[in-house]
């Protein structure tokens, strides 16, 4: 059975899940506030349970507080969603290229690009899942981290090889450079989001213990 303060902090971090860095800061600050308010009430004769209930009631609903933070600017979850949309577009574009362009120009690489398209789709789906329902599940965060590292490495490789080909006079394939930059950006955003969310999860586990 969780105490009123523990439950309040869990609710607050859930409301702030789109901003994992902020959630950690706010949870620590509010935890300090609530414990001091409760301790003061206990000193005046209240029971521990009543003191915590009173402190939580004075703090206000977690949704109200989280809503005030939401108005202060874009969240890292919002950035991740925006980057995911870019990767989803890459996936669709690659399927189109595999179906229409490559059979005539380069049929040997169709399978490889279809695998890349599938990985892009999986990365998009995992990102969306972590933002919406899976942020509390470690396995999803690990999957997001692995895909983020893979996407960053692949994106950087694609960008570097495109630039090297251009420098060597073998032509400039701008769409490959764009794909590399977008995948690298998505990978970095996802990696940071996964790390920050994992830190909030650790904090929640600590608070609930």
């Amino acid at each position, binding site marked *: 059975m969780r105490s009123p303060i523990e439950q309040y902090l869990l609710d607050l971090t859930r409301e702030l899940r789109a901003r994992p860095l*902020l959630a950690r800061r706010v949870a*620590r600050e509010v935890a*300090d*506030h609530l414990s001091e308010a409760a301790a003061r009430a206990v000193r005046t004769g209240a029971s521990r349970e009543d003191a915590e209930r009173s402190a939580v009631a004075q*703090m*206000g609903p977690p949704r109200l507080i989280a809503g*005030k*933070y939401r108005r*202060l600017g874009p969240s890292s979850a919002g950035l991740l969603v925006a980057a995911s949309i870019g990767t989803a577009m890459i996936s669709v574009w690659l399927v189109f290229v595999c179906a229409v362009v490559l059979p005539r120009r380069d049929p040997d690489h169709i399978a490889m690009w279809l695998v890349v398209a599938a990985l892009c789709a999986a990365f998009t789906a995992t990102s969306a899942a972590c933002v919406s329902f899976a942020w509390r599940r470690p396995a999803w965060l690990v999957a997001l981290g692995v895909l983020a590292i893979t996407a960053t490495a692949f994106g950087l490789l694609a960008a570097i090889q495109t630039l090297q080909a251009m420098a060597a006079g073998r032509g400039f394939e701008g769409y490959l450079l764009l794909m590399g930059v977008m995948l690298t950006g998505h990978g970095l955003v996802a990696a940071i989001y996964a790390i920050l969310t994992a830190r909030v999860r650790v904090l929640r586990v600590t608070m609930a213990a």
Partner: protein
Amino acid sequence: MNREPLPTGQVDLLLLSIVARGPAHGYAIIDTLRVLSAGAFDQPEGTIYPALYRLEEQGLLASREQAVAGRRRRIYRLTARGRRALVERRDAWRALVRDVDVILEAGARHA
């Protein structure tokens, strides 16, 4: 006499004014606000933290976590920019109160 709650827009001015007294953590700031306003501040206490964060984002406050009596606490202090903003906003508020008073006094003479 019924007391109206503090307007939300003026809470920023009050927070700057309280932190100008010296660096303080969130609980102490809210406690001071409650005591000095003699009950006029009746918003949920948790709404002050987003306001402090916003003031920090605007560069008017700065904060960092430090150990106080064995606890890690976030301490807020006024920045130089915050001090200038406080003077400007306080002067604007006083001018507004003065102007409103003039109108109210004129009205009272004819009431």
